[in-house]
């Protein structure tokens, strides 16, 4: 069963910044929403969003986590 990685973003209260709080694996957007809700239920979030990891485009090619993960993913694809 092949699942896709979704990053989970949330803000706690109105006015708070949207923060990356974690990740879930899911078959599609709908199940990703459910998995995010049931996995990250430690707070009543004001807002929560899921984003497929593949849709996250690091703006620079620096040392950040998503830039590193993207390069790793590209390297894995190239090795196939």
């Amino acid at each position, binding site marked *: 069963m092949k699942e896709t*990685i979704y990053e989970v973003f949330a803000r706690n209260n109105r006015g708070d910044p949207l923060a990356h709080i974690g990740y879930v694996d899911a078959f599609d957007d709908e199940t990703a929403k459910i998995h995010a809700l049931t996995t990250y239920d430690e707070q009543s979030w004001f807002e929560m969003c899921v984003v497929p990891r593949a849709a996250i485009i690091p703006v620079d090619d620096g040392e950040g986590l998503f830039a590193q993960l993207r390069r790793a993913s590209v390297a894995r694809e190239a090795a196939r």
Partner: protein
Amino acid sequence: MSPFTEDELKQKVRDGYMVEGPEDMTEGYRKALRVQLTVQADTELMSAPSYWMAARYAPSTNTQVSAHAIIQDELAHANIAYRLLEDIGESKEHLVYGRQPHEFKHPYGFDQPLDNWAELVVANGFFDRAGITLLGDVYANTSYAPLKRALVKVDMEETFHLRHGEVWMRRLAAAGGEAKEMVQRAVDWMFPMTIEWFGLPDDRKRHSGQLDYRLKGLTNDQLRQRWLSSAVPLCDELGLEAPAHFDEETGEYVLEYPFPCHYDEKEKRWDFEGGEITWDQVFERWKRRGPMNEIYVESVQRSRGDVSRWLNGRAAA
């Protein structure tokens, strides 16, 4: 490929450098992190069937909900840890579904059956306390930034599990009679079980990279002491006997039984009279795994193959 040598990275993390992703890691760092995350993930995962099978002893529908909320949390924590492992090149599919029961790295305590409500709440009071002790230290000290961020949620929820355990231990102990006896019986086997969980004493500890790479901050004995420093006062307060006391002179908690010692799985009884055994004997027992190991792992893995086969060839497969 890390831009650092092993020694450079060890020095950098000592100076506060946070590792963000696989490219920042040396091979030594990655291996030490992999071991740590695997133990963490397997422990969270195996606590789920253990608690799930015990939740049927819940005395009301409300308590069923609380017990299942804890199980939901544990599965989410496991999933997060396996996800972190994937990001450093491991396969969650293999780790969860491709291993034999004896290959999982959770502590021996989660290979034991929880046979009544008192045992489930003492597991929350003792085992989850061990979880907070270990993961709280990781949260405070880890150099791996994605894990530190993930542990915010985990810490929050483990605190709820602990509170659930303490509230119920208090209620049962205060009732006296059979209720208190049941808690005491659970404490009798689960207290030493948790003590052993923290592993080899520091003077016997083989060198591990986890401290060098600042993947944790405290040693096994320090963590064991930290657990004792809240578990023993709790037992004292509830009038429960625990085989340890605080020594004013040394400023440390002292165990009142031979450590380590044999454990009778059938009777759920530690053999204090049999005296101290070697750690090699403990490792042999851990390696054999406990009575529920195969049942718990099978309960997690059982439907994966079937449903994958049903979905085979479909878009979602």
